[in-house]
């Protein structure tokens, strides 16, 4: 059975698109913190824990929220819903913040709420908690977005029937530089059963992943 991408989110240069439609862009925004807060407010996401997340958590959470809010992912068993993400900086953004709290011996106050985010896969935990997802998950680190790796990994999960739906893509934050690309992948039969949405499903493979992610570069 073939898999299809039935929805996707793209965040790049403080601009946010969902299924190819521009959702958010403000020219005067200069920092990641201002951007992500403005996007959160605009989209009226009510989740107080959002403010406690690190930058990677916030970016992944918002990207998944905008992607999944129109998808009926609860129709899949939680144990058969997966999340496979990747980036190049791992949790370096938060590792730096943690280092700031411990590098001065005279003022040594490590922050527990910063420290808990010094792993990249914590963002997967945030998404899973929010959506009740309990299936396979992985966070892969590579120099740049490796569409072959993601397509191969997720296709393998589908072929071994470990997932029926899977969120996958790229979540990268370092300082004010951020980039997110998330795709929701489902089996062909499930796609046929869903009502037509704002985005025509495309086959799930390395080529389409690359095309959707890099559409702003063209």
């Amino acid at each position, binding site marked *: 059975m073939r898999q299809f991408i039935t929805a996707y989110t793209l965040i790049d240069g403080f601009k946010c698109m969902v299924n190819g439609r521009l959702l958010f862009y403000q020219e005067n925004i200069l920092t990641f913190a201002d951007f992500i807060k403005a996007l959160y407010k605009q989209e009226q996401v009510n989740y107080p824990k959002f403010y*406690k997340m690190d930058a990677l958590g916030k970016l992944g959470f918002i990207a998944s929220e905008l992607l999944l809010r129109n998808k009926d992912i609860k129709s899949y068993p939680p144990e058969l819903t997966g999340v496979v993400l990747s980036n190049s900086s791992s949790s370096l953004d938060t590792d730096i913040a943690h280092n700031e709290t411990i590098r001065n011996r005279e003022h040594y106050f490590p*922050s527990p*709420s910063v420290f808990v985010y010094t792993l990249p896969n914590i963002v997967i935990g945030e998404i899973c908690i929010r959506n009740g997802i309990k299936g396979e998950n992985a966070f892969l680190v590579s120099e740049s977005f490796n569409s072959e790796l993601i397509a191969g990994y997720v296709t393998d999960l589908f072929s071994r029937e470990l997932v029926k739906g899977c969120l996958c893509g790229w979540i990268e934050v370092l300082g004010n530089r951020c980039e997110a690309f998330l795709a929701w992948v489902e089996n062909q039969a499930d796609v046929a059963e869903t009502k037509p949405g704002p985005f025509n499903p495309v086959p799930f493979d390395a080529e389409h992943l690359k095309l959707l992610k890099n559409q702003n570069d063209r």
Partner: protein
Amino acid sequence: MEELIEKLKKEVIEQLNLEDIKPEDINPDSPLFGEGLGLDSIDALELIVLLEKNYGIKIEDPKDGKKIFFSIRSMAEYITANKK
């Protein structure tokens, strides 16, 4: 005491990133955990760090935490009694 309570409210909001909450929203006698502000276990650790960083108070026995961090008022009372 009231001055310390107001100061503590601001410090707790900042330390715990309670973005949408203002000092006047916090009842100094309401429980900090469970209901009320809905704080979690990581927040509890942050409050321990706050006491040490801002007031030089180290909690030696973790069992005391439940009583000390029951509310903003109980925190203020503990700080007043133990500040170095």
